[in-house]
């Protein structure tokens, strides 16, 4: 083999190697870019999913009302909210459970003082919506379920100092509100009973 031929071979070899290195770099850049894009996409999708899930159950829309009055009275009380979220109330509390007729505010407010959530619904609420409320109320203590005339939304959840208005009974915030407020941190008299008062719930 001549000197010239050897030189050409060496040049061709190094050119080939350089080309291989370039190809390898390109491949690496493509792999890294693809990985970054895929990982980024997954992260964005997961964040969006979690945020959407949280927004569905978020209790941001719950109104917090400061209630200071909590005396016993036999007289009728005028409450600023309908249904009320606490205040002066009747000496006897409403027994928790499911009622088919409207209740006296003054008795249910006393149950709210004991940790109950009042699930009030508009009379004439569609049956499938009412069934959801019944199912939620049946398996739980410290829930008063009753129709409420002149309600500002189809379903209104009220505990001591807290209220949430819902357009539908299948709103996931129903469970979230019940969980957060049945005997929740805002309960003035935790440990007090929701039976042994007045009223005969149907279930």
């Amino acid at each position, binding site marked *: 083999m001549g000197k010239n031929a050897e030189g050409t071979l060496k040049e061709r070899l190094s050119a080939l190697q350089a080309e291989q290195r370039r190809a390898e770099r390109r491949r690496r850049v493509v792999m890294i870019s693809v990985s970054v894009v895929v990982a980024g996409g997954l992260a964005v999708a997961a964040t969006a999913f979690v945020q959407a899930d949280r927004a569905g159950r978020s209790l941001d829309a719950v109104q917090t009302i400061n209630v200071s009055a909590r005396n016993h009275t036999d007289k009728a009380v005028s409450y600023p909210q309908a249904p009320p979220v606490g205040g002066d109330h009747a000496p006897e509390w409403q027994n928790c459970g499911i009622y088919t007729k409207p209740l006296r505010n003054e008795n249910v407010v006393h149950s709210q003082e004991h940790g109950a959530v009042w699930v009030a619904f508009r009379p004439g609420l569609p049956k499938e919506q009412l069934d959801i409320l019944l199912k939620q109320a049946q398996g739980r203590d410290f829930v008063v379920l009753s129709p409420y005339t002149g309600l500002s939304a189809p379903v209104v959840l009220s505990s001591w100092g807290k209220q949430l208005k819902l357009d539908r009974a299948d709103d996931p915030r129903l469970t979230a509100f019940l*969980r957060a407020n049945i*005997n929740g941190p805002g309960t003035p008299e935790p440990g007090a009973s929701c039976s042994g008062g007045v009223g005969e719930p149907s279930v």
Partner: protein
Amino acid sequence: MRFPPLLRRRGVLVAVTVVLTLALSGLGFRLWYAGPPGDASLEAGFARDMQAHHAQAVQMALIIRDRTTDRQVRTLAYDIATTQQQQIGQMYAWLDMWGLPQASLEPRMAWMRQGHQNMPGMGQQTAQMPGMATREQLKQLEQASGKEAETLFLRLMIPHHQGGVQMAQAAQGSGQPQVKRMASSILAAQQAEIELMRGMLAARGAAETSPPAAG
């Protein structure tokens, strides 16, 4: 030793070592310290359902104190009401300290399936927990008086205590010392009271017939 090209740089090697060490010690800490019981734990389920179960015992005890003048029954009822109301407070405080809501997401008694306990008589709509009296039975108790009320009370409270014993047995599998201690104390107290109530029924010449709808 030859490292793959990426690890040849010392900085990378140190970083990898640090990350691995942190991950392993984190894992070790998690294994060593389990933290407070979670929302779906046996402990949380016991604390929630036993509060409701106890609350009915307190309710029945307060009803019978209004319905009889018998000293022995009234004393037993006083004992049940004060003891169980105090235990309700303890269980309420556990959930509060564990940062868990008092109301459950799970259906009643789901936690007992974790304890491999078979619960006969579960699932009736009002008597969802073992031994719970139905609304009708409570109404009967409120309307009875004297010896009739005493007999009815004893006949309702015996299965109620038996249900409480079952729940307490399931909670003895807990790794939380205070939960285990409470479960043992409920177990011992209610088993003893069942015997006491059986004696009281016998003294009244009444049989321990199971009330029809009790679980």
